[in-house]
């Protein structure tokens, strides 16, 4: 840790102390208000309060301490107080996670694993249980490409570790389940925000719940950002223009969400489209050509049914249709001062059905059974040069996959729960069987000890198997096998002194048949199951809630992820992660100040050099019902210390014909956002 970082830490201590001083002065008011908070509510209002539960660990609702998994839950309250702009911002604050951004997509690292250029295919992302990973790239979109406005999120459940025994493919390192807000919670809501670099966003939402049981929620969002008007890449200093990329970091998106519920049925429709400029010259595109851009489109229709027939039987079923579209315009640099306009597109569409039944035949067994079926109508990839017109790739596929799972949670003894489960998945070229076993011991209501074992797999996707550009630079590999992971977790969760919740955990995992991009005999890029990785890690976190309404969390993660064959540390894997969050009410429960600090130790680039390791600090001032009922206002400063984090770049940033490779991508400096929201 160098002197700059030390200075930043001292700076943040001062910030924290100032904030604390201010909060102590306002303590009296907040104290009374917090106590009044719940006891002043009428019984009807109290009956509407949702208590903290999770559904992702076993696919039925249970207490966090009893869930056979390591979970983190982030509520909408935290999203507002900390000023999180995207799902990526939220995940950056979660203990043990880290996010890299290459100015096109955001990549999530879990347990020390983050492959530059992989579209988060090893994380399962769901919205209300609906799988979001597409059928071409398996993308778990977490940046501005995420198709739901995060203002519509009620809470985010993140389950660490393998989840294939319940969810099938992609639940490799974790499962993120986004649970949306109810229409009674949204009512009529308008929201607008503005940030640096000419960034604007607006949303209108309408939610109504009638006595007849008809529930409707509609929402639309627009977002537009010009991005920095000029970005400097020192590695490209020899390029014409001196390494500057102008007006290429633009980002704009639009999304719509609609949901209708009647009795036990819910019909949901979602659509989002995002356009992003590529300022980095990725994929060998001409550097500083603002025309290079990608458009990602994601939409779905989902009809779901959920009913509890009695205390001991719950049935849920789902029918869905999904669409994914990718449209990339790449101005390929031919290396001889000519360029070729290249259009790279993909279309995915699929439909499917799934059903989960939870039953309690005997008082101490909770059984879950599930079946899932998916028919991929289209998994099409196309790549053409515009002039002269050449079709490099026109690949069309369709496939079917299905899975069955069973799980039993046996409440063996009063303080001991044993969970065993297994899932069978059938794909066109392979089958997968993934079991899980867990022991949860709760000797007291305040203590939980968990010993967990799980296996998970990731099916090779259409992109890895079939993408090729006519032999220019890459070829496909249809014979790819699935990747496999085996994980052991030991966790101790403890509530103490009535205010604190601590968690100490250790994990070990081993990945085999890891799909990696390499070059074949003809020096073309190809995906192969060539690597094996393993990692050991320790996670420590401490959370506190205080009487005046303050909340805080401190976390530290140590992990060592290595390549089994070479023993070398994996690229883009930090050894240490440390985060601190604090939210303090300044005036009753209406004004909050929430600082946040994040640190990741240096990561290795693809060439083995190390990135820097600055401390990032964010600060948000949030008000609710202050002055006007229904008005929420926030002012946020991101990257308060104006550090320039280096995120590891991928293979696609090393393809410039006449320029050196881009090993790291410098992130934005200090940024701000003002946001207003009005509900009535």
């Amino acid at each position: 840790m160098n002197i700059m970082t030390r200075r930043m830490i001292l700076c943040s201590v001062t910030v924290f102390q100032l904030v604390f001083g201010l909060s102590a002065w306002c303590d009296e008011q907040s104290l009374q208000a917090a106590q009044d908070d719940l006891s002043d509510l009428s019984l009807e209002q109290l009956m509407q309060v949702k208590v903290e539960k999770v559904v992702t660990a076993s696919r039925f609702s249970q207490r966090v301490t009893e869930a056979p998994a390591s979970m983190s839950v982030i509520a909408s309250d935290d999203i507002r107080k900390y000023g999180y702009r995207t799902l990526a911002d939220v995940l950056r604050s979660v203990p043990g996670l880290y996010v890299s951004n290459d100015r096109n997509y955001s990549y999530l690292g879990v347990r020390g694993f983050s492959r530059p250029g992989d579209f988060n295919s090893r994380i399962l992302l769901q919205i209300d249980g609906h799988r979001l990973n597409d059928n071409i790239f398996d993308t778990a979109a977490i940046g501005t490409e995420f198709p739901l406005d995060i203002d519509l999120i009620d809470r985010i459940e993140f389950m660490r570790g393998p989840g294939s025994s319940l969810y099938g493919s992609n639940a490799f390192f974790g499962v993120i389940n986004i649970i949306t807000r109810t229409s009674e919670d949204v009512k009529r809501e308008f929201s607008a925000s503005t940030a640096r670099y000419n960034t604007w966003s607006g949303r209108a939402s309408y939610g109504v719940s009638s006595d007849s049981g008809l529930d409707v929620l509609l929402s639309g969002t627009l977002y537009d950002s010009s991005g920095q008007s000029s970005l400097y890449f020192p590695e490209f200093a020899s390029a014409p223009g001196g390494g500057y990329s102008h007006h290429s970091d633009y980002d704009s998106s639009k999304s719509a969400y609609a949901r209708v519920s009647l009795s036990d049925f819910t019909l949901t429709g979602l659509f989002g489209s995002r356009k992003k400029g590529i300022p980095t010259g990725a994929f060998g595109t001409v550097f500083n050509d603002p025309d290079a851009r990608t458009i990602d489109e994601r939409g779905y229709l989902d009809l779901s049914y959920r009913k509890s027939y009695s205390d001991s039987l719950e049935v849920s079923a789902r029918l869905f249709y999904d669409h994914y579209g990718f449209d990339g315009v790449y101005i390929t640099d031919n290396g001889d001062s000519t360029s070729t306009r290249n259009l790279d597109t993909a279309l995915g569409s699929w439909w499917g059905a799934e059903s989960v039944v939870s039953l309690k035949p005997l008082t101490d067994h909770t059984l879950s059974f599930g079946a899932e079926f998916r028919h991929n109508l289209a998994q099409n990839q196309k790549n053409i040069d515009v002039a002269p017109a050449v079709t490099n790739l026109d690949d069309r596929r369709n496939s079917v996959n299905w899975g069955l799972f069973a799980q039993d949670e046996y409440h063996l003894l009063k303080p001991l729960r044993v969970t065993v489960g297994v899932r069978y998945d059938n794909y066109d070229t392979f089958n997968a069987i993934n079991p899980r076993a867990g022991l949860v011991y709760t000797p007291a209501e305040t203590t939980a000890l968990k010993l967990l074992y799980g296996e998970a797999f990731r099916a090779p996707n259409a992109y890895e198997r079939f993408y090729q550009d006519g032999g220019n630079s890459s070829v496909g590999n249809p014979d790819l096998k699935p990747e496999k992971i085996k994980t052991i977790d030991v966790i101790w969760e403890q509530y103490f002194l009535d205010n604190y919740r601590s968690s100490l955990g250790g994990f070990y995992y081993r990945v085999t048949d890891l799909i990696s991009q390499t070059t074949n005999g003809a020096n073309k890029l190809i995906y192969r199951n060539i690597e094996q990785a393993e990692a050991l890690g320790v996670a420590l976190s401490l959370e506190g809630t205080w009487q005046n309404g303050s909340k805080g969390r401190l976390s530290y993660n140590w992990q060592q992820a290595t390549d089994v064959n070479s023993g070398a540390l994996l690229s883009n894997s930090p050894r240490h992660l440390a985060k601190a969050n604090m939210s303090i009410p300044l005036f009753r429960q209406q004004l909050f100040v929430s600082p946040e600090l994040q640190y990741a130790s240096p990561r290795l680039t693809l060439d083995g050099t190390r990135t820097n390791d600055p401390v990032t600090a964010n600060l948000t001032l949030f008000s609710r019902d202050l002055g006007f009922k229904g008005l929420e206002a926030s002012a946020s400063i991101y990257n308060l210390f104006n550090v320039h984090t280096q995120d590891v770049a991928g293979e696609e940033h090393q393809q410039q014909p006449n320029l050196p490779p881009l090993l790291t991508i410098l992130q934005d400096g200090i940024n701000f956002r003002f946001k207003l929201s009005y509900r009535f």
Partner: protein
Amino acid sequence: MSPLRLLIILFLLLVPATASVATESEYQVKAAMLYNFAKFVDWPADSFANENRITFCLVGKSPLNGAIQPMQGKSLKGRTVVIRPIVRPDEVDGCQILFIPQSERARASAYLQQSSHYPILTVSDLEKFTVSGGMIGFFEDDDKIRFEINLEAAQKRRLQISSYLLNLTRRGR
């Protein structure tokens, strides 16, 4: 000084000295509901030994003990709220409301037995509480706290439960 140590220190510095408050929001909701129940129940005139107090007795140790502390000293229908933790069934004399947490499952029937001699509103979140003679039982439905009432048990002890409270038990299902 290592940054980690610094972060830990500053985190602890920000902890205001505090009386215990439960972090489980489930118990905060139950505590608030318990406090509210007392507003809609009428005790027979002779059941208050001390005219000025209304006593909530909490059996054993549970997260509700901390969650209900803020109600201590508040005024409820002209009387001051007193919170009293108890550890033996024979201590129920003098209580107006008795809360039996899930952790006291083994001794619940002993407490109900003792309470049947006095006009005490018995409340719990144990399963099938109202079936075994308890008056108000908490349960969870769709992540929200609900309650059911055994009116007969209350009437046997001459406790009058307002129709407002009874109506709430029929909603939300």
